[in-house]
């Protein structure tokens, strides 16, 4: 199994080895040690491979990922899995700003907290955050799904397109929703009590899917 120690090996050697992999075949698992906040670790992979990174990474880890399955045993800096096309990225710790930004596919899992602008401009990726997400998450999110099990910061889903956001009922931020039959009109609850699931008139706390179609407001209790 190839092991790259970034304390003694150039990052370029790691990324070049990952870029040389067989795009359609089986590849050996990679292990990366001592990242110590390095940037652009495991970017631009386009091959089915498992990569495990032992430590915290800097900016844009797993950027543009395609097909690979990347696990970070630590925290990630801004822009983790940015523009991911497919594959899977798992962050065991926390993620910094704009995690999963503009990603087109694949699955990004953050087991800790994500910071602001999580899923900004997402274009098809699925993002699951077990902890909290920061303000302006899913800003201009076009498609894909964002599930947050913790708390969401202010302005969740600001300028939303057709992405689906799943958040616990009664979030602190306001939700910007477009009501059916009132295209262009936005409903902006001023406090968390107003953000209600209207589909069943359900006010219980639980996971609710907020689905903003082009002219319809649909809320589903799960």
């Amino acid at each position, binding site marked *: 199994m190839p092991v790259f120690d970034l304390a003694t090996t150039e990052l370029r050697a790691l990324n070049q080895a990952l870029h040389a992999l067989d795009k359609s075949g089986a590849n050996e698992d990679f292990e990366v040690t001592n990242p110590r906040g390095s*940037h652009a670790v495991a970017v631009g992979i386009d091959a089915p491979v498992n990569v495990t990174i032992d430590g915290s990474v800097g900016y844009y880890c797993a950027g543009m990922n395609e097909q690979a399955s990347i696990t970070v045993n630590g925290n990630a800096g801004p822009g983790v899995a940015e523009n991911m096309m497919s594959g899977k990225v798992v962050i065991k710790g926390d993620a910094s700003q704009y995690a999963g930004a503009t990603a087109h596919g694949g699955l990004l899992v953050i087991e800790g907290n994500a910071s602001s602008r999580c899923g900004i401009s997402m274009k098809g990726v699925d993002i699951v955050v077990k902890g909290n997400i920061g303000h302006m998450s899913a800003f201009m999110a076009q498609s894909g799904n964002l599930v947050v099990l913790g708390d969401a910061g202010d302005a969740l889903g600001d300028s939303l397109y057709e992405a689906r956001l799943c958040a616990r009922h009664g979030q602190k931020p306001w939700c910007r929703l477009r009501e059916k039959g009132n295209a262009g009109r936005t409903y902006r609850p001023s406090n968390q009590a107003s953000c209600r699931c209207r589909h069943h008139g359900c006010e219980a706390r639980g996971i609710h899917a907020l689905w903003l179609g082009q002219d319809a407001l649909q809320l589903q209790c799960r």
Partner: protein
Amino acid sequence: MHNGSLSNHNNLRRELTREGIRLETQNDSEVAAAYLTGEMAKGKNLGEALTSALDDLDGFFTFVVGTKSGFGVVRDPIACKPAVMAETDAYVAFGSEYRALVNLPGIEDAKVWEPEPATVYFWEH
């Protein structure tokens, strides 16, 4: 230390000059430093001065301020500029990225977090 850009620094400079504070440049960061100095001269501590800054300063900023007895950090409400902090029993550290903190002693066990927007973090002897 200021990462960002203030949009009302010209107006603030006029007001501070009227209050008798001397400013030597057209730079916005100098205005922020003079503003905080002015607030503290009115009796506020650094933490209170940074709280006032959130109301009186317009723009985007991450401030890291040190005085003889205190250390404070504040980010504007939009918080675009990166910031990360680390705290142990021995120290509090600030950087714009984790990589800047990675050689600090005990960093592996430090509490590492990103300061929240519009929130003053303040330590004083």
